[in-house]
């Protein structure tokens, strides 16, 4: 990517979970850190997310999930991204992600897993240091 181009991040709320305080705070922190941030809003199905990724071509996709649906929804999202041959985008999930679910999520290509109490600068650094392009 060109040196001047801003890092572009898509912050997503998959599923029916309406807990969007964390997603919105993170979206703002990433924007304040100089990134271009798109927030999908609530209730995104895997197809809607993949569609937005195709349209917006972000460098990173940050999923925020607090409802416990991550084990069901994340694999679907990752499969659909793969189907579209999107493999150079950092995909992370955070929210309420129990430790024991992390190996599985890591195996399907997700990173991050930041939960309540994480400092915003940790997340900003994470995005900067884990981009795939």
């Amino acid at each position, binding site marked *: 990517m060109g040196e001047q181009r801003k890092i572009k991040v898509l912050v997503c709320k998959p599923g*029916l979970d309406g807990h969007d305080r964390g997603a919105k705070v993170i979206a703002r922190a990433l924007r304040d850190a100089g990134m271009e941030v798109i927030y*999908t809003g609530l209730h995104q199905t895997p197809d809607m997310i993949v569609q937005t990724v195709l349209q917006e071509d972000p460098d990173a996709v940050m999923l925020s999930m607090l409802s416990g*649906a991550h084990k069901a929804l994340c694999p679907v999202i990752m499969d659909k991204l793969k189907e579209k041959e999107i493999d150079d985008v950092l995909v992370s999930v955070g929210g309420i992600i*129990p430790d024991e679910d992390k190996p599985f999520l890591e195996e399907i290509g997700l990173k991050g897993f930041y939960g309540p109490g994480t400092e915003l600068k940790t997340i900003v650094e994470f995005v900067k240091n884990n981009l795939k392009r």
Partner: protein
Amino acid sequence: MTEIDESKTLKPTKTERREKFTNLSDIEIKRLYTPEDIKDFNYDIDLGSPGKFPFTRGAYPNMYRGRLWTMRQFAGFGTAAQTNTRYKFLLDHGTTGLSVAFSLHTIYGYQADDDEALGEVGKEGVSIDTLKDMETLFSGIDLSKISTSMTINAPAAILLAMYIVAAEKQGHSPDKLRGTIQNDILKEYIAQKSWVFPPEPSMRLIIDTIEYCAKNVPQWYTISISGYHIREAGSTAVQELAFTLADGFAYVEAAMKRGLDVDDFAPRLSFFFNSHNNFFEEVCKYRAARRIWAKRLKNKYGAKKSESMRLRFHTQTAGVSLSAQEPENNIARVTIQGLAAVLGGTQSLHTNSFDEALCLPTEKAVKIALRTQQIIAHESGAADTVDPLAGSYYVEWLTNKMEEEAEVYFERIEALGGVIPAIKANFFQKEIANASYKYQREVEARDRIIVGVNDVQVREPCATPLLKIDEDVAREQIENLQRLREQRSNEKVQAKLEALKEAAKGTENLMPYIMDAIREYASIGEVMAALKDIFGVYREDSIF
């Protein structure tokens, strides 16, 4: 506005820990309060006796000396049968009211086998698709003896209908039923985000339930006007107070517009507030809420009955205050929050379990949370006299201050044309997003200390045993639903749904039509789909 001045971070002055002390509403707190701070204070006008206008000191004359608050623990997960077992556990351990947490798909009015329900069935609450599930949920529990609160909004009329019919099948008429449906759609657009229909038809459904219950289910609380979620979404205490009461005013105005007499429905409105960590701020918030509501109902809406002016509320301790780090510390937080609710005069209380920043609560954690309430009730002495903090210079000053700041918000909302136009202009959403970002920045700058999170932090692996929801729950729920579809009369279901749609096009009260469909075992998804055909669905702007 969101910039934090690093030089101010915890900088001690010569004699004090910091230059400026503020509460969570950003109200500056002085070193000392004296009679000067409440010099216009008039006992009869500002406080009055407990149980009397303006109810500042409490909703009832003898408060907890008569009857303790209802210890109502919010619970629900998995299938109706699993949650029924948890309810029986809670009842055996002294809980005095039930409170149903529904699965997300139920909250949005989807059935378990809809695509949108993927991954959600039974995860955050109990999965309810049809009357059959409601019957199972309360199997062996006498619905004429217990009071039940149901946290449900967009499809509230449908779940209420299921409850009434389930009780009928137990042999109890609707006038025997006691409980609450949350039924507060305005705060969904503002904060909790589980709306379905646009605001106007949603308001119609709510007024339909108010009207129906006033005639048929007179002991039922028809709305729980909720600040809880507004606060959880990141608002300040003042915003929670102001936005919640503004919603309350909007419901009163809508019901009066329908032609209902304010004294016929206002006594059945109830409130639901959060209790966060700043003890005095929370106590004063409840006291101010009672006073504002009483004055408004009497002076603006012309209520005549004392019960119409009397604000009653449920409290839940702040989920958002729970830390995932060192989770046992949450037991101490919940104790302080629970005590604030009691000293603020709550009518019922849910204390959160210490493990809820990690998962749905385990049985052990639920038991500690309930025990916390019992300790406050029986050991602390806080319940032995009414409103013991009254007369404190600080408490009365802060109660006045919170009322004043809420009034400023009421004027701003009025200037935008009222609550619904303000929602559509994203007013509340922006105010809350700003407050929550500011708070997070303050925590990160260590202007606010969260013990074990940004202070005295010890990194240790999480050793809390977690409650996990079996992935089989979704399969079982879907199988039950499909079996039911084979057993019921699908023709009758279709006929009742068509009748409902026709009625929805007009202005008739929809409750009887919904109940007819429910009796034939129409699913929540089917009833919602019928209403969506007529009402449409709402989409919000995605602002942050």
